[in-house]
């Protein structure tokens, strides 16, 4: 007698990461899992955006070193994952980013000044999430994966044609919320794409001390959802895989986990010293897999890009860098009374009293300053 056991599990992902364009700019012979390489027009757009965000990351990192921003986690080296995944989103889809995903926010259209408000210390989230269909970047690790799942669940209940995408890191993949999100999304079959940027380190902790699994994409099988392992420095592969996963979600076929193999070229933030936990040879090794170089080589080889095109994009990148500098030179107006304005939708007596205290203090300060003049 056999027992009829329902099976929802899937086979484990391929070991070889999905890739279209090799580090040398030539087409690869690695698996593509039935995905199609994006058109040259799409690839040109991705190239342009990667160059822009790299310049952005460099400029912001530079300003941070000058002490103009409190702290900044750069995603330099991870442009393909950030840009490839975010570009695949439709305007109605929602993005649920983390602290490292400024490149994704920029790609989503969040203006530079609003994006940098958090790092300047102006306000925790400087943009309107509804306007850009983008959640505030989460700092408590992995928490946003559940928000993305819940948002997608509501979209599903409302019959909305919207999917959600959330980024998480290899370190964050050890958090309980990651597992709860994978499970909820799969049980509820929500249109959610989990893009796991495996950049090899969580601050200083290397991947091998984070997990004993062969690869993080394997985890998907345990939750009954497909998991793909993608060359995270090949923007063509990231874009194709995420586009297909979003499509799957919108068709009612549930969530997908996509592990992007990539590397963090900078320190975790400006406040740590990466030479304490990694060898420079390793960094040099990963430079060979640079996502921008390889796409440029490829597009030149197909004739889609030439010197003039490259110069054009470089010029746009310089203009963006200038926008960043300008944004940093303009002091945002900070109203201390706003401390109390957004805690509750309804006024609270205790907060009103504390606001009065602050206002009296401010009035006193102004009087003192006037007295000195």
């Amino acid at each position, binding site marked *: 007698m056999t027992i009829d056991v329902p099976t929802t599990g899937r086979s484990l992902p391929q070991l070889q990461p999905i890739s279209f364009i090799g580090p040398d700019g030539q087409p690869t012979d690695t698996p593509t899992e039935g995905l199609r390489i994006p058109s040259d027009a799409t690839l040109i757009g991705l190239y342009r955006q990667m160059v822009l965000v790299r310049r952005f990351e460099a400029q912001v990192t530079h300003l941070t070193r000058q002490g103009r921003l409190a702290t900044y986690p750069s995603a330099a080296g991870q442009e393909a994952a950030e840009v490839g995944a975010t570009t695949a989103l439709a305007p109605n889809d929602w993005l649920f980013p983390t602290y490292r995903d400024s490149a994704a926010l920029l790609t989503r259209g969040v203006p530079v000044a609003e994006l940098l408000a958090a790092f300047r210390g102006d306000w925790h989230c400087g943009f309107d999430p509804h306007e850009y269909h983008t959640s505030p970047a989460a700092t408590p690790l992995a928490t946003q994966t559940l928000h993305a799942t819940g948002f997608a669940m509501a979209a599903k209940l409302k019959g909305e044609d919207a999917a959600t995408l959330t980024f998480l890191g290899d370190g964050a993949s050890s958090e309980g919320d990651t597992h709860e999100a994978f499970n*909820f999304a799969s049980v509820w079959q929500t249109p959610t794409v989990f893009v796991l940027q495996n950049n090899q380190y969580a601050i200083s902790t290397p991947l091998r001390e984070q997990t004993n699994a062969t690869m993080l994409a394997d985890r998907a099988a345990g939750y009954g959802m497909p998991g793909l392992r993608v060359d995270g420095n090949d923007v063509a592969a990231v874009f194709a895989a995420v586009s297909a996963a979003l499509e799957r979600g919108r068709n009612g076929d549930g969530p997908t986990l996509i592990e992007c193999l990539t590397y963090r070229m900078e320190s975790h933030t400006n406040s740590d010293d990466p030479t304490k936990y990694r060898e420079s040879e390793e960094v040099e090794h990963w430079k060979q897999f640079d996502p921008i170089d390889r796409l440029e080589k490829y597009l030149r080889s197909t004739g889609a890009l030439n010197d003039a095109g490259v110069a054009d994009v470089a010029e746009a990148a310089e203009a963006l860098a200038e926008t960043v500098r300008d944004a940093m030179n303009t002091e945002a107006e900070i109203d201390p009374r706003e401390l109390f304005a*957004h805690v509750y939708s309804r006024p609270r007596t205790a907060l009103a009293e504390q606001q009065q205290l602050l206002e009296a203090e401010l009035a006193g300060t102004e009087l003192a300053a006037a007295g000195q003049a």
Partner: protein
Amino acid sequence: MSVEAGTTPTTDPNAVDVESGTATSANEDAAVPEARPTSVTMTKALNQALRDCLADDDTVLVFGEDVGRLGGVFRVTEGLRAEFGATRVWDSPLAESGIIGTAIGMAMNGMRPVVEMQFDAYAYPAFEQIVSHVAKMRNRTKGRVSLPITIRIPYAGDIGGVEHHSDSSEAYWTSTPGLTVVTPSNPADAYSLLRESIASDDPVVFMEPKSRYWMKETLTLPVTTAPMDRAQVIREGTDATLLAYGPTVRTALDSAEAGAEHGLSIEVIDLRTLSPFDDETVSASVRKTSRAAIIHEAAQFGGYGAEVAARLTERNFTYLSAPILRITGFDVPYPSPKLEEFYLPTVERVLDSLESWDWEL
């Protein structure tokens, strides 16, 4: 501990099967005809509030552990899945952080989730989501994203529960800016406050006193009681003010009754909402009586009573003729059922404490 007539006695650890709830007692009033006074338990009042909210507003969703088919371990959600379908009321996977975290996403996408944490101490896995995100989303987005989420937490002891089933966690929530913390002590308030909580654009931690679930009251539903930011004077007096909430309101009333036999005129206030605190009502009472004590089940040190005592002293120092007292659980983990009666603040302990005041002043 006294239990009024008509209430399921709850001090006997065998009387209530905590894990499976109280299938029979909670549901005696299942087919209550509307607009006629009937005897209503707190679970029934809560159940009706959820039903009315689900009926009035398509964006209200109810989910959590066992809230669908079973109707919740305390049967507060009984019948709702059958009535509204599994896309409005459903059983989620067993993961508290997941429940709160997904509720956040749903609220961001226009829903009003009402979620249940099965027992007080089992909300702790969701602590991070509640404190770091539920409470802060509105503020961090400058009011652009509000989270109308109601988090129902059955709390407190006195039902002979096993370990981790009797915690009073209110101090964690009340010390978190951005949260509103509500706790009814009777069926009418349970109904009215839950409806108000679900309608609120701010997130509400709605704490349900387990030992009061089976308390009955003759009521006509729907009922609207005082707004949730108001405390209520529920017994007038002139000599002292007893402040209580949720499970200890009964203790306060019984203490006032017993005090009267000793010639004391004790005023009793049901706080109803712990955050915001209704300074106005409470200070007015304290100025009248010049003495106050607060009763809660949670441990004393750093507890909610400390906040109450401090703010009442700050506002009313010259009116006070005695220090404000706290009659609370001891500073020990909530004990096993056989020790519960020694831990919980009793009428005797309340009266003994009041005796410590210098009544000559």
